[in-house]
């Protein structure tokens, strides 16, 4: 080691040493910056603009849309039709119920239960259970949609076969209970994420906590309530926000029910698709998109503020 001063001027380097100069850094960011700008940031502002026009997919207003002010929003929130089937309000309420039932109750609770169960069961049961839960999550949505279509078929489906073998009456659930079908479907589809998140949260708790509880003779429920649950509270909040956002935006139930029968499973994402691409009303569809994004924004801000509080880097 030499104590001689370096030949190069030391001032610039000691002040704020970075491996990559600002110019090189900017060049490295450029491709990603362009792609994200065009396909994420521009759509955000463009959809706001389009929502104030009467743009359509075909016809005269496709090329020369007119400015209609708040017209699209007033149509969406028209109190005379708001709650009717196939209208925006119905769809929004349906989606809220869907998120509450399938994400907050279904996925989160089932994921929590599974994560807790697989902490203690023999490894081979853990592996088999995990495999199927994760398979439900990673397989392509089209395949899953068709699998459930076959599963619930009235005449031959596996589910009715099972019900009959248990002495229960079969049912045409896709027609009779479409809402509960998509609730169970989405719970089944997405529980894996919550399970894995909670599983890694539980694994990060020092085993000595549970051993001490064992010595004191605590039951599994007591350990869950008094040790497991309080220590993973942060993870639960993260999980709830993420699955709420994903469930709110999901389009997958379309592949099972097409939004029907008679709009009974028309979530806002499916409503948006129908208005824009089947009724060709782009302006109105854009207004739906704006409202969806505002709701997403609210959840994202909550999520980011929580993240900042927890990780003050």
């Amino acid at each position, binding site marked *: 080691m030499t104590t001689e001063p370096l030949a190069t001027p030391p001032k610039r380097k000691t002040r704020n040493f970075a*491996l*990559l100069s*600002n110019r*090189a*850094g*900017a060049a*490295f960011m450029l*491709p*990603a910056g362009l*792609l*994200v700008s*065009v*396909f*994420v940031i521009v*759509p*955000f502002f*463009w959809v706001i603009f389009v929502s104030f026009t009467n743009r359509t997919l075909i016809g005269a207003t496709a090329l020369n849309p007119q400015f209609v002010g708040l017209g699209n929003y007033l149509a969406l929130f028209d109190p005379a039709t708001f709650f009717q089937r196939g209208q925006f309000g119905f769809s929004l309420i349906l989606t809220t119920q869907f998120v509450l039932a399938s994400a907050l109750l279904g996925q989160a609770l089932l994921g929590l239960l*599974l994560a807790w169960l*697989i902490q*203690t*069961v023999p490894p081979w049961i853990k592996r088999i*259970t995990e*495999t*199927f*839960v994760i*398979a*439900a999550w990673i*397989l*392509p949505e*089209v*395949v899953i949609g068709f*699998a459930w279509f*076959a*599963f619930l078929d009235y*005449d*031959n*489906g596996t589910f009715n*076969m*099972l019900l009959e073998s248990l002495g229960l009456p079969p049912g045409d659930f896709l027609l009779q209970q479409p809402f509960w079908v998509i609730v169970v479907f989405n719970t*089944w589809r997405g*529980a894996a*994420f919550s399970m*894995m998140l909670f599983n*890694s949260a539980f694994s990060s708790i020092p085993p000595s906590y549970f051993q001490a509880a064992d010595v004191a003779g605590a039951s*599994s429920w007591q350990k869950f309530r008094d040790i497991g649950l309080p220590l993973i509270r942060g993870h639960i909040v993260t999980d709830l926000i993420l699955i709420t*956002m994903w469930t709110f*935006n*999901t*389009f*997958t139930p379309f592949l099972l029910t097409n939004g029907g029968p008679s709009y009974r499973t028309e979530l806002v*994402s499916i409503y948006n*698709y129908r208005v*824009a691409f089947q009724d060709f009303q*782009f302006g109105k569809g854009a207004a739906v*998109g704006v409202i*969806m*994004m505002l709701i*997403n924004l609210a959840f*994202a801000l909550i999520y*980011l503020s929580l993240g900042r509080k927890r990780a003050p880097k």
Partner: protein
Amino acid sequence: MKISLPAFVGRIAFSALAALIGAAFALPLIWFLFAPFNARAELGLAIPDPWTLNNFVTVFGNSYAVQALWNSFIQATGGVILVGAAATLAAYALSRSSIPGKGAVTYTLLLFSSVVSGSAAMVPIFLIISAAGIMDTHVAVILTFAGGLLPTAMFILRDFIDSIPKSYEESAMVAGASPVQAFFDVALPVIRPGIVVVVVWAFVNIWGSFLIPFILLRSSDNMPASVAIYSFYSEAGTPIVTLLAAYALIYSLPVVALYLFVSWKFGFRFFGGIKA
């Protein structure tokens, strides 16, 4: 350690419950283990008699079906190359340079990427692709997915690069390497596992997606398998079950293979990320 009787019973009850839930998750999928190999498959569960590969022969004889798998491959691969390359460069810059406003950029990206979902932004995405004159092309799907998946890919990679000591590249630069050389010859090989994870995640996302190709593509020559699968419906709208089952199985295989590969290699749990 000795186990008391109640604890033993409790453990059995736990195992039974876990197995029961596992079985409930398996039920809707079991049909897929049999129907593709059954020449007379219907929507009901039936053991094939005899087992046959005829359905697969028919699928591979259908040029449209094969073309669709190829289209899925082109779109997923194209998207993955773009996402992998652009995300690696950007994440490296976010981690190693001191560009002013780095934190703000990260925050804004996180915010936008979770707000602008595919189902909320379908109208403007359609209009942008239409304005760019690339409607009904592979490029349209590739670019849209690259843009949508990039923010999440960048965060995963930035965290990964942050965890690598800077001294690797510093020592290379002391030895006379330029910053760019230090990136390509020293940092890149170390980051590679992170890139593999991001690439697999992006591939699975694009390969399995339905909505974006569904609205951006028109001609059957460009349709990926996720949309083309609906061609196995008869004129009356009822599914041709034998072909659909076999096709769905073929179409699922890459996803399963990639998942097994990644969990074998990294013990990695898929992180859902933002679905575009």
